[in-house]
C-alpha cells in the first residue's frame, strides 16, 4: 500500500493555500524542520513567524495575531504544545475564540526512542476537556488535505494531532470530510471498532482478518475527537452490540473514554479500550511497540474475539 506522511500533506497544502491567502500565517517554535515547513518559511517569509523554543509564547503570540484577523497555523511537537502550552490553548485560543489551529506534529509515540518526554499520549484527554476547541486526529494524508480545507472555513480554534512517519493512504485523493462526522468502513454486525489516527488502518486490517473467521466488523474512523459523532456511535452500539476502541493514546481520558461516555449514557453495551496502559513504553520502532501493547491488527483481532464472547 502506498504510504504518505500527514506532515508533508499538511505542509504542501498550507503552502498552496497561503500563496493566494495572505492572511494565513505559520508560527513555529524552532520546529520548521520537523514540521516540514522550511519551504513555507523560505517562500513566504512575510507569512512565517519564528518564536524560538518557547511553545507557550508561540501559542499566546498566535492568539494575538489571530485577534487582529490572521488565520494562524502553529506547527510544533504535539507533546509540548498539548501539555506545556495547555493553559495558553485554554485561555488565549479557546476561551478567547481566536482563530488558531495547532498542528501537533510527531504525535503519539512518533518520536520512538526519544522517550516519554516526547510522547504525546495525554493530548486527546487534555484538549478535549477544553470548551470551544476542536480536537482532530486524522488518519491519512488525503484526509489531512481535506481537513485543511475544512479548517480554513472555520474560525473555531483547533488542536490537530498528526504522526511523524508515512502511513498507508486509505482514502482517495478527492475525499471530502466533514469535521464531527465519522467515516464508516464495512457494514459488520458482530462488533464495532472505533479508531483514530494511525490506528485506523490497523483496525481496517483487523476487520479483514476477522472476516476470515466469519466475524463481521464495522470500523469507524473517528478522526474528530471533539465534537464527537455521538449519533454514529449510538447507531454502532445498537447494530453491533459491542464496541472496541483503538487509539495511540493513554487508555485514560482519550477516545475510549469519550466513546464510553456516549455509550453509557445512551445505549450501554460491552466495551473494551485498547491503548497505552501506565506500563513503561519500551524503546523500539512504533510497529514493535504497538505489537507489545496489542495495538497491531493481530492484537486487535484477539481482543475483539474476547469482547464478542462477552456480548
Amino acid at each position: 500500500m502506498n504510504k504518505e506522511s500527514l506532515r508533508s500533506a499538511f505542509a504542501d497544502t498550507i503552502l498552496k493555500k497561503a500563496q493566494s491567502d495572505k492572511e494565513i500565517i505559520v508560527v513555529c517554535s524552532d520546529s520548521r524542520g520537523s514540521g516540514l515547513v522550511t519551504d513555507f518559511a523560505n517562500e513566504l517569509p512575510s507569512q512565517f513567524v519564528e518564536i524560538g523554543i518557547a511553545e507557550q509564547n508561540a501559542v499566546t503570540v498566535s492568539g494575538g495575531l489571530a485577534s487582529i484577523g490572521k488565520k494562524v497555523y502553529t506547527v510544533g511537537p504535539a507533546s509540548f504544545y498539548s501539555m506545556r502550552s495547555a493553559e495558553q490553548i485554554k485561555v488565549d485560543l479557546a476561551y478567547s475564540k481566536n482563530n488558531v489551529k495547532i498542528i501537533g506534529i510527531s504525535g503519539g509515540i512518533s518520536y520512538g526512542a526519544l522517550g516519554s518526554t516526547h510522547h504525546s499520549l495525554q493530548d486527546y484527554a487534555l484538549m478535549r476537556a477544553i470548551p470551544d476547541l476542536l480536537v482532530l486526529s486524522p488518519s491519512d494524508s488525503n484526509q489531512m488535505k481535506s481537513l485543511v480545507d475544512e479548517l480554513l472555513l472555520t474560525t473555531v480554534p483547533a488542536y490537530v494531532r498528526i504522526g511523524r512517519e508515512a502511513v498507508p493512504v486509505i482514502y482517495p485523493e478527492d475525499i471530502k470530510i466533514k469535521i464531527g462526522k465519522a467515516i464508516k468502513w464495512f457494514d459488520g454486525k458482530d462488533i464495532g471498532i472505533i479508531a483514530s489516527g494511525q490506528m485506523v488502518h490497523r483496525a481496517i486490517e483487523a476487520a479483514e482478518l476477522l472476516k476470515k473467521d466469519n466475524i463481521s466488523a464495522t470500523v469507524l474512523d473517528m478522526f474528530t475527537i471533539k465534537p464527537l459523532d455521538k449519533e454514529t456511535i449510538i447507531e454502532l452500539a445498537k447494530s453491533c452490540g459491542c464496541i472496541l476502541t483503538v487509539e495511540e493514546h493513554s487508555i485514560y481520558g482519550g477516545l475510549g473514554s469519550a466513546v464510553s461516555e456516549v455509550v453509557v449514557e445512551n445505549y450501554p453495551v460491552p466495551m473494551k479500550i485498547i491503548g497505552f496502559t501506565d506500563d513503561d513504553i519500551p524503546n523500539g520502532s512504533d510497529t514493535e511497540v504497538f505489537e507489545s501493547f496489542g495495538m497491531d491488527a493481530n492484537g486487535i483481532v484477539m481482543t475483539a474475539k474476547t469482547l464478542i464472547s462477552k456480548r
Partner: protein
Amino acid sequence: MNVEKSKELLSLASSIREKTVKIVIDGNGGHIGGDLSEIDILVSLFEYMKHDPKKPQWSQRDYFILSKGHAAEAYYAVLQQYGYLTQEDLDTFGKFGSKLGGHPTKKLLGVEANTGSLGHGLGIGTGMALGLKMNGQENRVFVLTGDGELAEGSNWEAAMAASAYKLSNLTWIIDRNHLQISGNTEEVMPLENLVEKVESFGFHVIDIDGHNFEQIFIALDTCIENKPVCIIANTVKGKGLYCAENNVEWHHKTPSLEQYEQLKKDMKDLVERGDQ
C-alpha cells in the same frame, strides 16, 4: 503639559478612584490595591490612545490589554467613564449573572483580550503588534502588567519576541507598586534591577512616576525606531485611599462606608489643592 490639563486629569482620576471604591463596596470585593495604583495610568491611556466608543472595532484604533486582569474594577470604572459601559452595568458588579466578572473579557465593548491568568497580556500584545506591523498598519498596542506578575516566565518569552521583531508599535507598561499578595516584590521574588533587566531584553526603558500625568504622557508619546518601549511606572498600591496605601493587607479588601466617605473628602481636598 499645561496646568489646566493636569488639573482636569487629576479631577478625572479622582472621580474614577471614587467610582472604583464604590464598585468594590457594592460588589462586596475586588482587587482594590492594584485598582488604585493603576488609575492614573489608565486615565492617561484612555485620554492618549486613538479609540472611539461609538465604533469599538474602528480599524485605526490603538489596542489596550490589561494583563493584570484582577485589577478589573478600576478598568470597568474607566470603560464606563469613556462610554463603553453604563452606570447600570457597574451596578451589577458582584451580582449573579453580571457581565462584569472579576476579570475582563472580550464580551465587553472596548476590551481587546480575555485576561486573568497572569503573564499572558504581553504575549498577546506582541502577537497583535506583529500582525499590525505585517499589515503595514500604524495602530499602537499598549499592555499594562503588574510587577508581581513578572515572575511568570511567559513575560520574558514575550519580551524576547517583541524585541526580536523590533515592535516599535508596542508599549509595555509595568505598574510598579512593589507589592503583591504575600508582601513586597523584592521579598517574594526580587525583580531588581528591573530597568537593566528589561533593557537587556532589548526594550527602550523609561522609568517614571506613575502618578505624574506629565511624565506618563511623555512616556506614552515615546516611540523608538526598531525597538519596543517599556514604561516602568512607579506607583503606590492603594493610591488615594490613604488607609490602604503601601499596605499589603489591602491587596483585596473591601473598604467600609466610612473609609469611602473619607476617600471622597480626601479626593475633594486633593482636587482643590490641585496637586498629586
